[in-house]
Structure formats: structure tokens, C-alpha cells
């Protein structure tokens, strides 16, 4: 470049060539990209999205397990449809499995046996499909828990939370319609139970059952109907909702943990290409691999042992797949005598409550959680920074209470297996569960909330007095004390990067003129809920408190000069790591 700053000669060609300069021929990949870009305008669309930044944390990858297992479900599912025959037409089995040869069964059962024993790779595909379904729904649930525990469902992500809840419901229904298809003894028992649940609906029950089964149970329509719901209707809606879920994720941008340099306005992380494309792609193969291993090594739903469905038969251990287990558990612990006879019609509360009332109620509660919280806090701001579970003690405790309820109901669904494996009495397990289902969640709520508040106190201790070094000092008076050292500023920033909770006290019942305020009733309720949710929380220290604590610490440091290092062995703990400059807290 010329030293003369007034004249910029850098753009002047220095060549003496006489022919025009041409670009060298692009490689085959680049020319293909150009070809596609000229026709599809990919560059514009990709320019932004390939550079899209995602924050890095293991818990942000739980939803990905669900996504990838869904891909496995689509792949294996397509394979299975090529041989499965969803018909209830009667045939005599003449395939490879000796024990059932010559036995009459439906075509769907016979084709399932054919896939299992006579189609190459069929059993592997069946088992992978089934394991992937179990993992699909399980990963949706752990993803849901992560979102709830970190407060990621707050504005602007409430609707994505609702979509997620509907995905969970649809996934469960998809699972039920899927495992009902083979028409084996276990699935037939499940369909029979579903028929009973429908019929327990007052007034409309029998009509609904006749509509679904095309007449009296079992009829000949249920399997083809469940099939079309399983392979077309629900997967279609699932795909659309998953697309919407992910588009909203891109639109909202991913949430991140607070830390130095991380704000509500930015996302700190790595770009889609090359980092996340590689990570997500790699994770797909790991999910695929785990499911393939499970499908190859672990038996699931051995229909040949159940044999074809026959209403006269049943087997011990007739449980639904795990995600339907908790309503089954509620059904199992429900006192069986709860029935009312009204004008000659029986209302079966013993089926109605555990199956038709509580599960929809739980789903409604789940969907409403972000809206309830938003209403109580009155918080209309966007939130992109996550909360640690301890910093929302009531929310965390509510989720743990719901989990406890779910877990107890779930365990009750396996009461017979628990009884034989732990040599316990099935009756006593049932009696225990009847009480625990009410007390357990309350106890879990209380313990979790106190635990969170204690952890908040601990954080404040660390901020004000530093961390425990392990050095015990003895004063001239003979008093022993453990020496504390201040945590590094980055860790301190991260710990204090949260809002103070504001307890809503209500606008007052009457205004200055003594006129009753509008909506005072709901406002009073809101104030009470706000007090209940936030008044126990420990707030972060103020700047003045921190200042004073540091001043005090400096004074003490002078007295014990030479001891401002942790005791031997602390070099390897995370305080040492957090002291290094380039590894902020929760970087990974």
C-alpha cells in the first residue's frame, strides 16, 4: 500500500497483462452450489441460518434426542409398513414359529409374526421401532422438565411450551395406536381396556365405543382404523408441530445460561456451521446407534409369546407401555367400590376419575403453568437468560411435586411386578400408594422448596464470605475458624445475574375515594399467590452489602497474610478452574 495517504492505489491493477483477467474454473461442488443458488436462492436463506449461533450446554440437547428418535421412528416405520397387513381377517398361521403353527389368528398378528421371523431384518426393525418410541416419549419428558426447571417457558416461549405439551400428548396416543396394531394378547387386552374407558363416559360412552369399533368390541374395524391413525393422521400432525416447534426455536433464538458477556439481547455460543451441524449430526448417529443396539440386543414386545388376542385369555404383567403406565397406576389404586347408580345407570367413578378426569387435568395444569406464572408475576418482559432451579424455589417445588405424583402413579401401575420382585404384598403396596399419592407430592413440594432456599442462602454466603478453603486457623484465644477466600469476579457475576423477586401486594381494595377497585377479587388472589410463591425466597445481596463484606474480608486478609491460598488439594477443584481467565462458570 502506498505511503501517500491521499492517494489509494491499492485498487489499481499492477499487472502488465494484455488479456483480461478471468476467474479460475470453480470446483464441481462450488459450481453445483452456484447452479442451485441461481435457481433456489439458497445463499440468501443459508447465509443467516448457517451462521446461527447456539449456546452450548448438555441440557439443551435433550429435545434433540426426541427429534432424532422420531427420525428413527419414521425410517423403521416405513420399513414395517411394507410387510404389515392391518386386517382383522382370520387366517391360520403357517410361518416359521413352531409353537404357533396351525393356530388361527388375525392377518395383522400373522403379518407381525412374519415380519419377526421370516422377513430379513424384520425383527430388528420392529424392536428398533418400539425402543425408539419408548425413547421418543421419554426424551420429550426430560426435555420438558429441563425447560420447566430453568424457566425457559417464560415469555416469549409460552406457545412453544403449549406445542411441546401437545406433542407429548400426541406422542403418547401415537404409541398407544402403534402397540395396539399387532393384535396379540397384550395389545388386545389394552384395546379392551380402552373400550372400557370409553364406555365409562356417562351418556355418550356406549355410542363412542360403537363408533370407534364399528359395532360391539372387538368387531373387524379397529385395527385398520388404528393403523391409519398411526401411520398417517398423528405422524402428519406430529411432523407439522415439530416443524412449528423448531421454527419458533429459531425465531426466538435459544435460551442461555447467564454469565459474563451474556445478556437478554445476545446469544453466546457457536455457529451452526461447522460446530452445531457436526454436533447435531453426530448426535443423530449416536441416538440411532443406541436404538439399533437396543433393538438388536434387547427383546421388546415378544408377540409370539403372547399369542393372538382372544378375549378369554389374559396374562400376568399385562401393563401398557411405560408412558401409559401412570393412569393405569391410578386405576389400580382406585377403590373399586366407588360407583353411583343414577336412574338405573351406573356411573363408574372408579374408572372415570383415574382415566377420564385426572390425566386431562394434569395436561391442562401442565399447559397452563407458564400462563399462571406470568399472571402472578405480572412480568411482561422477554426472557432469554435461564434461571437456575434454586432461584425459582416455588416453581421448582411445584414441578417436583408433579413429578412425585406422576412417579407414584407410575410405580402403582407396576404394583404386581414390584410385589413379586421385592417379595411384598400387592395389597399393602396399594394401601401405601393410596396415601402416598396425596402426601408424597406435598412432602416433595416442601422439601424441594426448603432445599432451594437453602441453596440460595449458600450462594449468598459464597458471595459475601467467599468459599471454604479447608484451612483451619486457631486464634490466640483458642478459637478455631475455617478460612474463606473470595470467589472470582466471573463466578460472582454469574451468581448475581438474576432479578430480585418482587412480591405483588395488590393495588388495594379501595381507591383514595373509598370506591372498590375493579377486579379486586382476582388481584387479591394474585397478591396471595405472589406472596406464597416469592416471599420466602432469598434475594441476592445488594451492592452495599457486597462492598461491606469485601471490606471486611480485606481486613481479615491483612491479619492472616500468607494464607490467601486454598489448602493443598484445592488446586484441582472447580474454584481453581474458575480462577483462570478463560473458563467462565457454566461455559459448558
Amino acid at each position, binding site marked *: 500500500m502506498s505511503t501517500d495517504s491521499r492517494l489509494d492505489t491499492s485498487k489499481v491493477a499492477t499487472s502488465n497483462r494484455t488479456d483480461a483477467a478471468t476467474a479460475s474454473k470453480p470446483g464441481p461442488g462450488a459450481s453445483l452450489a452456484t447452479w442451485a443458488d441461481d435457481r433456489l436462492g439458497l445463499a440468501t436463506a443459508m447465509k443467516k441460518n448457517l451462521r446461527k449461533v447456539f449456546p452450548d450446554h448438555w441440557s439443551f440437547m435433550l429435545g434433540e434426542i426426541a427429534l432424532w428418535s422420531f427420525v428413527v421412528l419414521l425410517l423403521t416405520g416405513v420399513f414395517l409398513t411394507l410387510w404389515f397387513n392391518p386386517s382383522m381377517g382370520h387366517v391360520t398361521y403357517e410361518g416359521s414359529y413352531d409353537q404357533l403353527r396351525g393356530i388361527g389368528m388375525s392377518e395383522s398378528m400373522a403379518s407381525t409374526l412374519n415380519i419377526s421371523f421370516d422377513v430379513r431384518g424384520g425383527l430388528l426393525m420392529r424392536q428398533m421401532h418400539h425402543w425408539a418410541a419408548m425413547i421418543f416419549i421419554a426424551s420429550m419428558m426430560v426435555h420438558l422438565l429441563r425447560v420447566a426447571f430453568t424457566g425457559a417457558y417464560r415469555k416469549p416461549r409460552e406457545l412453544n411450551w403449549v406445542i411441546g405439551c401437545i406433542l407429548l400428548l400426541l406422542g403418547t396416543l401415537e404409541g398407544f395406536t402403534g402397540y395396539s396394531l399387532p393384535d396379540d394378547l397384550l395389545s388386545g387386552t389394552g384395546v379392551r381396556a380402552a373400550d372400557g374407558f370409553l364406555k365409562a363416559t356417562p351418556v355418550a360412552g356406549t355410542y363412542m365405543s360403537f363408533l370407534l369399533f364399528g359395532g360391539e368390541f372387538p368387531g373387524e374395524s379397529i385395527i385398520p382404523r388404528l393403523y391409519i391413525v398411526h401411520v398417517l393422521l398423528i405422524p402428519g400432525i406430529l411432523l407439522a408441530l415439530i416443524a412449528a416447534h423448531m421454527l419458533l426455536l429459531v425465531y426466538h433464538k435459544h435460551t442461555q445460561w447467564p454469565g459474563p458477556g451474556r445478556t437478554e439481547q445476545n446469544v453466546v455460543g457457536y455457529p451452526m456451521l461447522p460446530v452445531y451441524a457436526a*454436533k447435531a449430526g453426530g448426535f443423530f448417529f449416536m441416538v440411532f446407534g443406541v436404538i439399533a443396539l437396543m433393538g438388536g440386543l434387547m427383546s421388546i414386545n415378544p408377540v409370539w409369546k403372547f399369542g393372538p388376542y382372544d378375549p378369554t385369555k389374559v396374562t400376568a*404383567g399385562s401393563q401398557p407401555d411405560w408412558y401409559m403406565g401412570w393412569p393405569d397406576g391410578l386405576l389400580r389404586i382406585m377403590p373399586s367400590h366407588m360407583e353411583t347408580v343414577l336412574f338405573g345407570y351406573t356411573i363408574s367413578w372408579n374408572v372415570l376419575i383415574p382415566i377420564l378426569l385426572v390425566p386431562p387435568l394434569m395436561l391442562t395444569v401442565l399447559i397452563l403453568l407458564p400462563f399462571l406464572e406470568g399472571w402472578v408475576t405480572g412480568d411482561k418482559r422477554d426472557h432469554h437468560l435461564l434461571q437456575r432451579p434454586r432461584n425459582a424455589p416455588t416453581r421448582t417445588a411445584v414441578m417436583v411435586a408433579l413429578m412425585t405424583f406422576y412417579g407414584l402413579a407410575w410405580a402403582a401401575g407396576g404394583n404386581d*411386578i414390584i410385589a413379586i420382585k421385592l417379595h411384598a404384598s*400387592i395389597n399393602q403396596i396399594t394401601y401405601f400408594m393410596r396415601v402416598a399419592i396425596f402426601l408424597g407430592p406435598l412432602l416433595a413440594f416442601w422439601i424441594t422448596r426448603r432445599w432451594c432456599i437453602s441453596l440460595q442462602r449458600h450462594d449468598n454466603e459464597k458471595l459475601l464470605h467467599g468459599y471454604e478453603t479447608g484451612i483451619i486457623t486457631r486464634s490466640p484465644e483458642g478459637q478455631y475458624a475455617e478460612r474463606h477466600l473470595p470467589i472470582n469476579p466471573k463466578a460472582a457475576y454469574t451468581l448475581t445475574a438474576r432479578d430480585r423477586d418482587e412480591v405483588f401486594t395488590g393495588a388495594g381494595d379501595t381507591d383514595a375515594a373509598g370506591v372498590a377497585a375493579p377486579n379486586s377479587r382476582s388481584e387479591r388472589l394474585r397478591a396471595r399467590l405472589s406472596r406464597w410463591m416469592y416471599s420466602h425466597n432469598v434475594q441476592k445481596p445488594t451492592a452495599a452489602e457486597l462492598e461491606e463484606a469485601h471490606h471486611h474480608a480485606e481486613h481479615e486478609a491483612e491479619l492472616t497474610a500468607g494464607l490467601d491460598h486454598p489448602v493443598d488439594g484445592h488446586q484441582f477443584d472447580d474454584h481453581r478452574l474458575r480462577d483462570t481467565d478463560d473458563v467462565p462458570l457454566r461455559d459448558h
Partner: protein
Amino acid sequence: MRVLNRTAGRLSRHRRGPLAGLVVLLLGLLISGSLYTALAPAQADSQASETEQVAQGKELFLASCAFCHGKNGEGMPTVREGYQIGPSLVGVGAAAVDFQVGTGRMPMASPGAQAPRKPVVFSQEEIDALAAYVASLGPGPAVPNESDYSIEGLSETEREEAISRGGQIFLTNCTACHNFNGNGGAMPRGGYAPSLHGVEGKYIFEALLTGPQNMPNFSNGNLSPDEKRDVIAYLGSIQDTPEYAGFSLGGLGPVSEGLFAWVLGIGGLVGAAVWIASHTTRSKKSKVSA
């Protein structure tokens, strides 16, 4: 026929020979003698040994069983309704004794919801003696012969038919308690239907016949001996065939499958997520010096 006629003709030629009378006499003596040896003394012998066996059985019974079942096997009446210490053994038959003692369930180590299977304390000879004694208390089902519960004597096709027929009988009558794979299930108040894996055919036959503990009694009237044999054949076949689908996970149905989906599936994949997230591209690597 012609051969017979010819033989008869040849014999007939000698019937007036000088030694004919002697030969017939000797033959007669030989046949009647051997018949007597084969039948009569044996009866006398077994009569004696059976009495001995019953006596031996009674002694064993008084030492090991009478505490609960009474000195004459009449059972132990209790004050509380439905609370049984030792039921009467009159009419339970040798099969019940062979099952209960042969599988180690009796004598019980302690009272409880159910007598569990445990190491057998008596030798087969002693069990036979006990069975003989209990059988002498009143008529009851006898210990089955091996031909009753084995399909050894059947042809290949008959065996296959027996197995698939047995499977259907098993699914109709047994799986409700014993589970589709014969792995057992829970019964009320701490009772349980035990696992059928590795149980000898004889004991399954006897259990069907006598209905021990919580089990209903499948008399020969409602489940014929052949049908019982078929169930045993089916159970044998599902133990002999390989697990086509991999580890059976306890063969307990969806509960254990769900457990493995969570622990191995979700556990493993969350582990993978942690691993992927912890290996990240960094512009500079911090060095931790010890």
C-alpha cells in the same frame, strides 16, 4: 397263516410220540411256575414293603410334619376363620406330597403368605415313604408316571401339535397368574404364582392335579392328562428355543421394558449429550497446572 398251519401240522405229527406227554407236562410246569414267579410272590413282596414304607413314612411324618398337620394328618384347626396352620392331608394323595416335599416347599421353614420353593430336605426314598403314608390316609391322586407328562413317545408331527395345543391351553388357563413366559406373577396378600422355568414336568403335572396353595385344581376331568402333558411340552419348548429377540429383560412385559428404556436408553443418551457438549471448540485451551 400258512406258516402257522405248517407249524401246527408239524407239531401235530409228533403229538402221539413217546415223549409228548413228558414235554407237555414240563411245559405246563414251566409256564405256571414262571407265571407264579412273575405275579404272585411279587405281590406278596410289595405288600410287605408297602406296609414298611407306610410305617417309615409315618415315622418321618411324626417327626417333620405332624407339628402342623396333626399326628394323623387330620390338620390343625384354628380359632380364627380363614387362618390356616396346617390343612388336613386326608385325601390329598401321594401326588400332593411328592410335589410339596419334592420341591422343598414342605416342610415349611416359617409360616407366611406362601411356602416358597427351597432346597429339598428329604431323599426321594423318604419322599416316597411320606407319600405312601399320606396316600394311606384316604384316596387321592397318585404320583404320575413319566409317560403321563413326557412327549418322548410321540412322533415329530404329534409333538409339534402337542406343543402348539399346549401353548393355547397355557395362555387360556395359566398365564393370568404365571405370566405369558411362565415367569410368575403376584397374587393377593403377599402370595405369588412362582416361575415355571426349570420346574420338572412331573411337578407341573402334580401341581395341576393337586392345586397347591393359591393354585386352582385342574382335575383330569377339566384338563385331561394329555392336555396337561401338552402344557408341559409347551413350557419345555419355550425354554428350549433360543431368545430370538435378544435379552429377555426378565420376561415380565412392558414394566421391565420401560425401566430399560429409561435407564439404558435415556440414561445413555443423556450421557452422550453431556459428552458432546463438554467437547467444544475453543479458541484457546486453558491449562490447569497442578
